[in-house]
């Protein structure tokens, strides 16, 4: 058989912040604990045990929607820093950008949606505090997780082709060996640590999510370590009664944190609405560096833990956001 080579017709000039390594990931996954053990712990303990400075981090879902804010605040309080992140985010990345914890970003979208451009990302990127920014589209970054979840080094796609987004990415273009058309090769992305806020989990980490699942399915399978926070902790019997509801099985999970209102001030489908009053106040504060520093001091550093946050916000106020009866 004659050998043929597939030519790379284009290479993005962005750097590969986290290299695909499916063989290494297989070895890692082989060693992951498959026993049903109790993984319940506090947010502080989860961050202390499973995150180290310099790690590559990812957060699900998006902006102010089912966003792991309790875990984010604990991460900021921990003082750990020098992170690399997959950057589809809004509220959680704001907290890390404002406290200078991010060194490099695989960037898809950081903005305030209907409220416009994000001042934190402007300050951090325009000043050069963030050392390296590599561009991707939302589909591309999610397919990077999907490739990792599939255990392969890349998957081909029809996004980013022909654009500066591709030029500033670390993707490559080849001609498909089957059809001859150009395809963009999206490299696998394995996170050192992923953070996902879910509706319900048992103490082992089996997790259910109400409503859209965003990219929880793919990202949870693309993490070396995964920290889950949950509105409710339920019995394993309930998980086993509805196994079709489990989107993240326990063996992917390293830590389970009970965090009611864990997406606050964001929303949680089936539980509570976004705290629009707080969020509007936040949007004003983040416009200036001083305002943002004050916000972070008041809402993160001045509070020792999640319980203190809930007390500061006030249970009456939080219940006012509920779209269902009390679950605490």
């Amino acid at each position, binding site marked *: 058989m004659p050998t043929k080579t597939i030519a790379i017709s284009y290479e993005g000039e962005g750097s590969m912040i986290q290299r695909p390594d499916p063989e290494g990931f297989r070895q890692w996954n082989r060693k992951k604990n498959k026993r049903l053990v109790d993984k319940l712990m506090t947010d502080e303990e989860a961050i202390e045990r499973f995150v180290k400075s310099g790690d590559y981090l990812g957060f699900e*879902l*998006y*902006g*102010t*929607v*089912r966003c792991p804010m309790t875990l984010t605040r604990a991460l900021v309080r921990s003082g750990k820093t020098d992170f690399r992140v997959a*950057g*589809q985010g809004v509220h959680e990345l704001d907290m890390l950008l404002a406290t200078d914890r991010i060194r490099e970003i695989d*960037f*898809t*979208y*950081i*903005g305030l*949606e*209907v409220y416009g*451009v*994000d001042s934190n*990302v*402007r300050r951090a*990127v*325009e000043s*050069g505090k963030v050392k390296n*920014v590599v*561009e*991707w*589209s*939302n*589909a*591309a970054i*999610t*397919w990077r997780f*999907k490739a990792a979840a599939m255990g392969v080094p890349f998957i081909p*796609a*029809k*996004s*980013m*082709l*022909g*654009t*500066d*987004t591709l030029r*500033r990415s670390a993707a490559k*273009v080849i001609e498909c060996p089957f059809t001859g*058309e*150009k*395809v*963009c090769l999206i490299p696998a992305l394995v996170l050192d640590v992923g953070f996902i806020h879910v509706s319900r989990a048992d103490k082992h980490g089996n997790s259910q999510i109400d*409503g*859209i*699942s*965003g*990219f*929880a*399915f*793919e990202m949870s399978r693309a993490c070396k370590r995964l920290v889950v926070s949950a509105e409710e902790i339920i019995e394993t019997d309930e998980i086993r009664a509805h196994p079709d509801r489990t989107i993240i099985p326990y063996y992917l999970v390293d830590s389970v944190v009970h965090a009611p209102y864990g997406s606050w001030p964001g*929303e949680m*489908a*089936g539980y509570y609405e*976004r705290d*629009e009053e707080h969020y509007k106040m936040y949007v004003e504060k983040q416009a200036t560096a001083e305002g943002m520093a004050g916000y972070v001091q008041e809402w993160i550093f001045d509070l020792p833990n999640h319980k203190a946050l809930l007390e500061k916000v006030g249970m009456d106020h939080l219940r006012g956001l509920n779209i269902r009866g009390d679950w605490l």
Partner: protein
Amino acid sequence: MSEKYSSSELLICLASRIMEDGTTAFIGTGIPMLAASLAQSMHAPNLVAVFEFGGTGAILEKLPLAVGDMRTFNKAVHASGICDIMETSQRGFIEYGFLGGAQIDMYGNLNSTAIGDVLHPKVRLPGSGGGNDVGSCCWRTIAVMPHDKRRFVQKIDFVTTPGYLTGPGAREEAGLPHGTGPYRVVTSLGVLGYDDKTKRMKLLSVNPGVTVEKVVENTGFDLLLEKEISHNPPPTDQELDILRTKIDPDGLYR
């Protein structure tokens, strides 16, 4: 009925009228969402709204504030995730895609990444998000934006989202799916389309009180003109009533 509506309300009505019934539209937050909702109430009850983080076929009763919020799958037919939505678009199921940006050029390429050099940006913008994916794989994209010379420029600083790239054949040459691309630009001054042959932007119609000269003056590149440029009717009483009482009772977009 003139001057009884805001500029946002006009954009919403113009975008709404473009969408046909019985098809699919990839919707972002803001004006496209209101336009899709209005279209559902007016002429397109079977318009399927698709939101990138997993909502398909929602009944758009309350305004979503984020592309993943629970209103994007209110009474929907499916709540899945971003891979499902992006893959559905990639295999040709999504007709319309809405886009926005800080800059647009004559081929409908859009910049939402940076003003100035992307490595040392004067203004770092929010980035592609799903914009590039919508512009790559939806059949027909509709950009909605204010119309002025700062936005409608000869050369955009960064091609975040593909329009017709450098002209005829460029999308196919780059590997993008055949038959896809920019369809309309709905602006504060009028509605624009693209010339079949040259793929360059072309003025189709002007908004109430706007002259062709004003559109040309506010465009930073050589704009093609349709032979007979029509006048967009202002929002009707019925459109305004639905918008104000049903879709946006809080007046966020008034």
